[in-house]
């Protein structure tokens, strides 16, 4: 029987149009300079916000939090999440939107479909739209909804330059030290029963987050390692420093922003390597689009990796879950609400850039 809480959830969960909105983290930290309330205030004031920053700084996460908070408060009548990381993704999400709203025939020109959606948005007075991961602003050039009152748009993008979008811009940089420490400890103790009993070593946590360049994604990965291995922070700091030195010896990095994430990833890899099925699955996922990797595709991958027929749906799911477990534990992948899997694009990028390069180098030795 449904609890009253669940009934409320079923009744009030709105339909999100477009693509699948990513799942937010359980360790969200309300930053001082860009607190959720402040961001929502800027959105209400300007109707359109551009959130920028280098990868892994939490742009999408901040957009998710605004989205979730608005849904929880039943603030808007309609919600749209459009993945604008590529033309194909964006057009697919627009088509899904048009179809769900029943305003355009699916076999129609995409420009007509865009126009149909814009026309529809003009007739609606209360909606929130997220345009996530806009790397190429030309993509959304012809898609400018008319904003007025409660019609709000949030754009997330790596950089604000090369855009002529005249809007309020929020630049997300590294966290402040106190916020970074809070994130590390929150992510470290998340889902652990001993969280209250365990002394929180804020001093060593401070040292670690500084080593990690106050980079949110690297901090989450380090916390995942510590949690999975029940390791201590000072011991991790030592390993991290050593590994970082090794990486610099091998090849100096031009893209300094990736160093903390790459180093934390490599430390986690050394633990992951024992599970060959997981490694194989990770290798395969690395070549897919990072967002919403469908569960049936993942099941097919693992069936093939296991070289078994995977006869029943439940056996396929069990097999997939066991292979995914270490990837979840080390915070490499996340599950989206519809059961699909997503991987942070920086993790995917760092893996592709590093692992195959090392492999090729070794093969040539």
């Amino acid at each position: 029987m449904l609890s009253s809480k669940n009934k409320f959830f079923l009744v009030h969960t709105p339909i999100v149009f477009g693509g699948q909105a990513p799942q937010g983290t359980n360790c969200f930290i309300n930053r001082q300079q860009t607190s959720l309330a402040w961001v929502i205030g800027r959105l209400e004031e300007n109707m359109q916000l551009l959130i920028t920053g280098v990868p892994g700084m939490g742009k999408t996460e901040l957009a998710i939090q605004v989205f979730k908070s608005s849904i929880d408060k039943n603030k808007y009548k309609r919600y749209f999440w459009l993945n604008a990381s590529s033309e194909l993704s964006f057009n697919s999400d627009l088509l899904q939107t048009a179809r769900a709203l029943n305003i355009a025939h699916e076999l129609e020109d995409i420009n007509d479909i865009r126009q149909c959606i814009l026309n529809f948005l003009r007739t609606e007075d209360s909606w929130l739209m997220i345009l996530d991961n806009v790397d190429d602003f030309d993509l959304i050039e012809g898609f400018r909804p008319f904003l007025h009152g409660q019609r709000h748009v949030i754009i997330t993008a790596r950089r604000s330059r090369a855009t002529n979008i005249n809007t309020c811009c929020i630049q997300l940089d590294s966290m402040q030290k106190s916020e970074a420490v809070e994130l590390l400890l929150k992510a470290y103790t998340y889902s652990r029963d001993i969280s209250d009993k365990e002394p929180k070593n804020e001093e060593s946590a401070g040292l670690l987050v500084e080593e990690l360049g106050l980079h949110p994604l690297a901090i989450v990965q380090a916390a995942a390692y510590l949690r999975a291995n029940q390791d201590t922070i000072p011991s991790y700091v030592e390993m991290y420093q050593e590994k970082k030195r090794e990486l610099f010896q091998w090849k100096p990095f031009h893209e300094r922003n990736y160093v903390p994430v790459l180093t934390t990833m490599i430390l986690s890899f050394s633990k992951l390597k024992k599970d060959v099925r997981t490694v194989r699955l990770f290798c395969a996922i690395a070549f897919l689009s990072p967002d919403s990797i469908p569960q049936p595709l993942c099941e097919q991958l693992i069936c093939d990796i296991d070289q078994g027929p995977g006869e029943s749906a439940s056996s396929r799911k069990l097999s997939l879950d066991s292979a995914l477990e270490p990837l979840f534990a080390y915070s490499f992948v996340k599950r989206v609400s519809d059961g699909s899997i997503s991987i942070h694009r920086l993790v995917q990028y760092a893996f592709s850039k590093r692992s195959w390069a090392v492999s090729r180098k070794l093969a040539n030795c």
Partner: protein
Amino acid sequence: MGSVKEAGELLASLNIEERTSEYWVRRIVNYVQVAYPPYISPETWRKCGVYNPHAESCMRHAGKWLIARELSQLKRAVASNLHSFGEFERAKTLRHEALDINQRIFGFESLETADTLTELAQIPHCNSAVDLLNKALNVYGTIYARPNSSLQEKLKVHKKTAIALHARAMVYSSAGLYSEAIKDYELALEMKNAIIEERRDVNITNTLNGLAKAYSHQGNFEKAEELYQTSLSRCRNPIAEADTRNHMGNMYSQCHFNKSLQQYNLALSIYEKQYNANHNLVTKPLNGMGNVYVILGK
């Protein structure tokens, strides 16, 4: 050197072949190709949307080095999806790439190559459409004539030939060459009628409507009307009926205004019933009705 090994050791547990990115790209292309819907319809359309970003990622990683049947199939399937929502330039590029792969793997006289030629010719404003379709029709003819072809293979080729003829008729019709268009439409119709019992996926109404339109352009309204009536009797879904009635409205708008308005109204009511009032298909009969009222001075 030791540190390099250690740094790359995630892959160390895999066998030599698996330690290359090329190995995984090949496999991923296979998986995504199998999962991607092979044809576009309202039923498969959502799934295409889900798999599009992954197909795009696969194709980007495969670059130009991977020559595989699965990659060609994936490119063709994605191109059909792009074509269906008007992304013709990208669809054209993908079809050219698929054609290149098919010619290398299967040769020039293969079904895969001929099918890709037909698809390429269907890109709007394709200058060499007739040449491409002629080549495809020649290949189909050669394959059909092979003595060792099974009945199923012959049926398959028969259907593909009808599709290519229909496509060529459309090219002729849009160029104002109605006599040539009528010949091809009639041949395509004859072929489709011959296999409709065995192949239920054959679309008869689009050829009947195309043929009727060509006759009406020639001024043979009687024949056109008869064909439209046949088309109506063979419609399998309401949208096909609405499309046919909209075509009839267009034909009658040249002289029989009341009949034209009647057909547009019928088309409009079906579209509105199937979709909602804001749907862009609704604008088709509405625009047609508007034009008729302008002629009537209303």
